[in-house]
């Protein structure tokens, strides 16, 4: 039934080429270019201290983006992740510790606070999941509402103040160094490996792509679509809580605005890394590449003394350029 070997042979190299045009690989040469430009503009770019900072930032954003990517692959999205990023560490600390002289101080156990942080992330995810999956609210509106609601709760809880004097159990993952690398980076790297194996080699991981690519087909194949989507929201909430904890540890405090506007960077990174907003396409590794690119570009801009006020504008420009590239390379097959 196969065609002649000549046609089969002629097809193979073309496929390799088109694989390299996939947005998740297209990012590699861009990363190299950015590094060269960065090194040329400012010698401090290649220093250990600079990389340490970049890697820390990239890890926090990366873990948040991995959570978002899992939701995007399954064909939904969650804007409220950045509020979870800020609120989950705050709830844990506020309820259970005597941080900065304020708080409910229910138990004064850093360990319980740690558990509470992840539980908060999971509960917020489950709440969003119920709204979007079972009540079938539009994901944009529903998670926009939770975004605003949760952000308001963080402000209300702390009255706009910053929680400080965090116990070392909570700050350790965000600030410690092992073998010259930040612990947060090792955590992110571990998650990258686990989630990559999960999405490519675990059956539920494959189901994510099926649910995102064609929910009706997934249903016909007997996949429990609703349950998978609920799980996705819960996992994303927990990852956002973890990312928030890492950032709180790095800055050794929890300001009421922790994580503000970070979801836009996470979306930008995912899109840069070739994750489709229509669901069913994209990889965790690609999204992490996007994170690295975004953080590196922002770092180069800072080192080149571009005023901080202009950095947001460049992020917007980068996303548009990435969209153009994916359109031209034909990777954006949805349209």
């Amino acid at each position: 039934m196969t065609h002649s070997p000549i046609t089969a042979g002629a097809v193979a190299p073309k496929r390799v080429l088109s694989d390299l045009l996939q947005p998740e690989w297209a990012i590699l040469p861009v990363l190299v270019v950015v590094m060269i430009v960065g090194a040329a503009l400012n010698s401090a770019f290649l220093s250990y201290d600079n990389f340490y900072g970049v890697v820390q930032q990239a890890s926090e954003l990366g873990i948040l983006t991995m959570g978002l990517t899992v939701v995007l692959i399954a064909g939904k999205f969650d804007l409220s992740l950045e509020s979870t990023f800020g609120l989950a560490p705050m709830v844990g600390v506020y309820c259970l510790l005597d941080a900065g002289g304020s708080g409910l101080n229910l138990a004064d156990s850093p360990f319980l606070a740690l558990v509470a942080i992840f539980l908060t992330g999971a509960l917020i995810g489950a709440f969003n999941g119920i709204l979007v999956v079972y009540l079938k609210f539009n994901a944009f509106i529903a998670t926009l509402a939770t975004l605003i609601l949760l952000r308001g709760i963080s402000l209300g809880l702390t009255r706009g103040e910053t929680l400080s004097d965090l116990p070392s159990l909570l700050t350790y993952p965000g600030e410690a160094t092992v073998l010259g690398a930040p612990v947060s980076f090792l955590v992110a790297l571990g998650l990258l490996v686990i989630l990559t194996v999960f999405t490519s080699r675990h059956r539920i991981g494959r189901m994510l792509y099926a649910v995102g690519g064609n929910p009706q087909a997934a249903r016909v194949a007997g996949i429990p679509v609703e349950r998978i989507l609920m799980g996705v929201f819960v996992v994303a909430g927990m990852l956002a809580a973890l990312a928030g904890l890492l950032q709180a540890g790095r800055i050794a405090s929890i300001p009421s605005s922790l994580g503000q506007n970070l979801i836009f960077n996470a979306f930008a990174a995912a899109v840069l890394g070739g994750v489709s907003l229509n669901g069913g396409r994209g990889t965790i590794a690609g999204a992490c590449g996007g994170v690295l690119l975004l953080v590196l570009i922002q770092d180069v801009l800072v080192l080149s003394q571009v005023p901080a006020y202009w950095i947001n504008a460049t992020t917007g420009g980068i996303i548009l350029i990435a969209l153009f590239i994916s359109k031209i390379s034909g990777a954006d097959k949805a349209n």
Partner: protein
Amino acid sequence: MSEQIVKIDGAVKRFGGTTALNGLSIEIRRGESHGLIGRNGAGKSTLVSILTGLRAIDSGTFLLNGSAPPALSDRNAWREAVACVYQHRTLVPDLSVAENLYLGQYQGKRMISWRALNQEAAAALESWNIPILPTTQVRDLGVGEAQMVEIARALNQGSRFVILDEPTAQLIASEIDQLISRVNELRERGVTFLFISHHLDEVPRVCDAVTVLRNGRDVLHGDAQKLSTAQIVSAMVGDEATGIALTASEHVARPALAPETPVVLKARVKLDACQDALDFSLRAGEVVGFAGHSGSGSRHMALALAGHISKWSGEIVLNGKSVPKPWNPRTAVERGMALLPEDRIKTGLVGSMSIEDNITLPSLKAFSKRVLIDRRARRKFSEDNRADLGIVCHSVKQGVGELSGGNQQKVLLGSALSSNPSVLVLLHPTAGVDIASKATILDIVERRRRDGLGVILVSDEPEELAFCDRVQVWVRGRKVIEKSGMSEEELVSAMEGFHLSPELS
């Protein structure tokens, strides 16, 4: 004014290699209701697209109102000459009836005067004797009422020639009577209709003249009052098929099942949408056809069996065990019931995933070793299937979106079979598939049938239904007949709402 609204002579229309119209001629006189009859693929839709100016014929002559038709791009001229009421609604549900009537036309430079718009709409509706308030939201209308609004809109835009494309398919009996009396009323007032229907019993009630199409050609013209149903059916089916019992044809000459063959599925299912309950049993290795056009209930019954419709009462016994409620697709797949959906792109395949991913989607659990998927076993399974199903591709890692329709259908069938079901529900399994793939697909099902797979085949194509051991025919929610060895004529006329027993015809 010409006597003929439409005069087509020797029209030919090709799409690539297929000839949709092959020397078709038809004349529609002003003021008549003209019935257009033919099976799927006879050329009805192509003819409609030509009459509405969506396509041009390749050769032949086409006179509209006695002169050459307007250019395809002149949409206004076409809108004034011909209107078509399609099976699917083209009204905007959240706007009022009045707004829908004047949609796109009430955009003068001044502000809209709602009072004037509603008054005008009320006058228009009244003049066509349609008792609907112009301020009603279209969403709140019944199917029949919405159809009348579509007809009123067509007439309002100046057209006095209206094509009704299977207008009764989704109507209940009382609505059909209403529609027919409205159409007859409007015809008295000089409106010309082209009435496309699958239900032959309606034809003499509505039509003056009838044209029957087969294979892109007109095979019978006549007076609707004088032609007998048997004459129409034999024209639809063609001489070559007359009288031959379908199930006796060579590809389904199956030996009788052994008497001890177990029953794999026993069902008593009542759906709200259908008047009759489904009551049947299926033995291992048996193929039962559910025949009927859209809206007949055959598809709904099959979907309920496969767990895709939750609202039903009764009992389904699968492999000797009563199925749990809610009976959903997931439990159905787990218990050994697989479905091959009719729309492989929309509901069957995940276009962004590979052949391998798609073909193992329902059976991922079986390929999981401890935690992860056993990639080697999965690759072997998909390679075996690729060879077995004859899927033409350069690798099982290829995306299914790149495959031809026939190959996609084979992947989908492989996927449905991958969970080793004991019952397989097929919805129009060979629709839109090339001839070679059609044969392969039925071959694969036949092989599995021999191993004891019970098959339910939903279709309105006699060629597909010929694969069945017995067929039950559904018309408008009622089961009209169940038997084996039906001839093509008998099957077609039963689906069209006429039960011809061979002795009488």
